């Protein structure tokens, strides 16, 4: 009744799919490109305003000088934080628990940067540099404040990453996504520092 059955053919095994770029990293990078344009617009406006000032009128008379020397320490802390996060990333790839303390130190240096910036702001406000006191004050608080907001957002994400790392639940997507955003914060700062403080 039935014909001879042919031997069963082996089903082709699909090759495992691997993301070329983790979705979190790609999404963060697209966001970072938009953020770069956001900062570029503000820095551009500041540069043109400053260039249009009359000779001897920048910084505006009666306004305090920005503490470029003291801010160099904050800058060093932020750059060290970025370098430590890179080391933590390599440690995490090899053996996740090894990255814990490097990661935490990186976070603490980043938090230190924000705290030192806050102290600097309170001193400048006490000296009379406010958002409405001059063009310098308006641009300073706008640009540096926008950067500080980004730094705090990134620190919150990195902080949650630290919790996940301690629990052994940190995923590639969360780590590399937040890492990408932190590098943006770290690398944007020297540009802001060089442009606004000098």
């Amino acid at each position: 009744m039935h014909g001879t059955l042919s031997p069963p053919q082996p089903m082709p095994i699909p090759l495992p799919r691997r993301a070329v770029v983790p979705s979190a990293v790609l999404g963060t990078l697209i966001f970072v490109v938009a953020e770069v344009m956001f900062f570029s617009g503000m820095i551009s406006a500041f540069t043109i305003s400053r260039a249009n000032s009359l000779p001897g009128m920048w910084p505006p008379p009666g306004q305090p000088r920005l503490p470029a020397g003291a801010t160099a320490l904050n800058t060093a802390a932020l750059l060290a934080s970025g370098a430590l996060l890179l080391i933590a990333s390599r440690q995490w790839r090899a053996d996740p628990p090894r990255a814990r303390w490097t990661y935490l130190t990186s976070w603490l240096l980043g938090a230190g940067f924000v705290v030192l910036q806050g102290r600097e702001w309170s001193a400048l406000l006490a000296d009379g540099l406010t958002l409405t006191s001059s063009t310098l004050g308006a641009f300073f608080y706008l640009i540096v404040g926008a950067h500080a907001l980004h730094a705090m957002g990134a620190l919150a994400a990195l902080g949650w990453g630290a919790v996940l790392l301690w629990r052994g639940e940190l995923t590639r997507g969360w780590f590399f996504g937040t890492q990408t955003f932190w590098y943006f914060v770290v690398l944007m700062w020297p540009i802001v520092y060089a442009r606004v403080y000098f």
Partner: protein
Amino acid sequence: MATTTTRDAWLLTMASLGLPAPAFACPVCGVSATEQGQAAYIVMSVVLSLLPLLGIGGLVAWVAVRMRAASGTAERPRDSRRD
């Protein structure tokens, strides 16, 4: 008729390129009191024009390089960690 209008528009556009001073988009920045101000305006215009192209172009190029690299190592074992 349409061809003539298109040609006229094209000629008008080309002719406007010979008059850069009135073509400044920002009347405050372009007519700066100082040469330094005008130079800053032009430099920042160039930077702001090129930056998005560099950003998006760089991102696309980087993904393309990663795809090429991944296609060469497709048979490597997958990382067991979760994405």
